[in-house]
């Protein structure tokens, strides 16, 4: 356990090193936050209470999206490209030789990364957004607590998906295609482009049931106070369920894959 805490701290520190990149990222997230916030203002002024949100909630959703973009790796990015490269080059053999579990090792590192991105790239754009627009921030400390739990589960589900994506490299010569599909599904089904409760009919139902909704839509609804009481329990259970299923799938795939590893000396 202590080992993984160290790995997580390492993940945090590693991303904290790139100060200039963090500043640039904050700038970009803020610019996009403003652009999208104006389009949502136009949308909600036509149809107030669209998707069950009032305008303040809709704008909060925009800035949450920018804050969680990197935290929950909505569009991918993080360890998976690295891990794929290690699998492709065979460096993975060294990882498997370590006295640590591959999946737990990467999960710990990714949690550290997420923690840094939340503090480094999430909080500042959110604060700027709150300064420029009238946002619906939670008042109850319990809502904040529930949000942090939901956010953590969101990161874990996101990790589990990306771990599966990375392991695909064991079977594919070139992982660019899978990474791209992962990018697309995250972009569309996390609710980054538009809240999933604005998706029509069957598409909306499917989108809300898929694991990607655990990345942004569910934490955002918890933050906005749309999920309370048993509904909140249901939301967290939904995230935890996907986390469990996907982590287990990753575990199975990992053990199948490691049996495929052939170490070529030299």
């Amino acid at each position, binding site marked *: 356990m202590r080992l993984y805490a160290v790995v997580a701290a390492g993940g945090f520190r590693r991303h904290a090193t*790139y100060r200039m*990149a963090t500043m*640039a990222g904050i700038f970009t997230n803020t*610019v996009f936050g403003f652009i999208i916030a104006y389009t949502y203002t*136009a*949308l909600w002024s036509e149809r107030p209470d669209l998707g069950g949100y009032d305008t303040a909630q809709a704008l909060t959703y925009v800035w949450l999206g920018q804050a969680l973009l990197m935290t929950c790796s909505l569009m991918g990015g993080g360890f998976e490209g690295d891990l794929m490269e290690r699998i492709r080059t065979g460096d993975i053999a060294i990882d498997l030789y370590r006295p640590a579990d591959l999946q737990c090792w990467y999960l710990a590192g990714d949690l550290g990364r997420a923690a840094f991105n939340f503090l480094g790239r999430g909080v500042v754009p959110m604060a700027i957004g709150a300064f420029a627009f009238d946002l619906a921030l939670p008042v109850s400390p319990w809502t904040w607590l529930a949000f942090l739990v939901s956010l953590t589960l969101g990161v874990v589900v996101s990790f589990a998906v990306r771990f599966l994506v990375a392991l695909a490299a064991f079977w594919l010569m070139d992982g660019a295609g*899978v990474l791209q599909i992962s990018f697309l599904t995250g972009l569309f089904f996390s609710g980054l482009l*538009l809240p999933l409760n604005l998706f*029509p009919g069957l598409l909306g139902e499917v989108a809300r049931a898929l694991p990607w909704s655990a990345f942004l839509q569910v934490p955002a609804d918890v933050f906005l106070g749309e999920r309370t009481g048993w509904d909140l329990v249901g939301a967290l259970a939904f995230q935890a369920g996907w986390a469990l299923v996907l982590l287990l799938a990753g575990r199975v795939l990992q053990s199948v894959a490691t049996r495929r590893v052939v170490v070529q000396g030299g």
Partner: protein
Amino acid sequence: MDEGAGTGRGAGPGAFARPGPVERSPLVEGVRAYRLIAGMWIRSTMAYPASFAMTTLGNFLATVFDFVTIMLMFGHVDVLGGYSLPEIALLYGMAATAFGLADLLLGSLDRIGERVRDGTFDTLLVRPVPVLVQVAADRFALRRVGRIVQGLMVLGYALVVLDIDWTPLKVLLVPLAVVSGGAFFGAVYVGGSVVQFFAQDAAQVQNSFTYGGQTLLQYPPSVFARELVRGVTFVVPLAFVSWLPALYVLGREYPVALPEWVAFLSPLVAAGCGLLAGLAWRAGLRAYRSTGS
């Protein structure tokens, strides 16, 4: 298609001028070098045809999702900022195609910071080919054609559906604005890459102006605050890519009071920005100090 153009060259009037070193203008030389490097990268991408197909489709879809988002919005409303879906499609199509052109030709420039950091930038300086050409053509990604295709499709849809009072000037303005817009975004790419000489991790800032600029231009100016509209008209002249020409074509008034003929200034604005970016690039290259890695 590139190959065909290459073999055709020998048959031209210049064919008799060989052999011996031919005096070519730096521009021709640069374009030739770009084609050679880009061609090499295309061949290397084709080594994994399945992956190429997937990433091209993915690139296409990623941009399609942009427009799908707007369509989903119009599932709930009839107008956005006073504009109908086909009208927004015109704005979108022009902006997306313009950006797509720049992204295809110069999109690799956003990796320049990475190259400075890992030291591979230095190797480009000693080669007898313009550095800008080398970096721009580096990892040339044909899959980025997906963005242009999608932009043109939305533009085509808008032009078919919209009931426009066409005049010869309007017919001329649309392609003129798209090409100028591409040049403008190209200038942004070059200017942004100069920043990366000095702030190597700052590629993201460039994205705010390229991807962010395109996103902004997808929506009508009436959606945004007046100050923001002024800013992208007079400070960072994004408005000349699509807003001003498209609003002229649609016969709509621009929220910031400007004479009508301003819509035709896109080529001048693009040329001015290109010149500035070129000067910045030269100055940046001269001031460049290797990290020594």
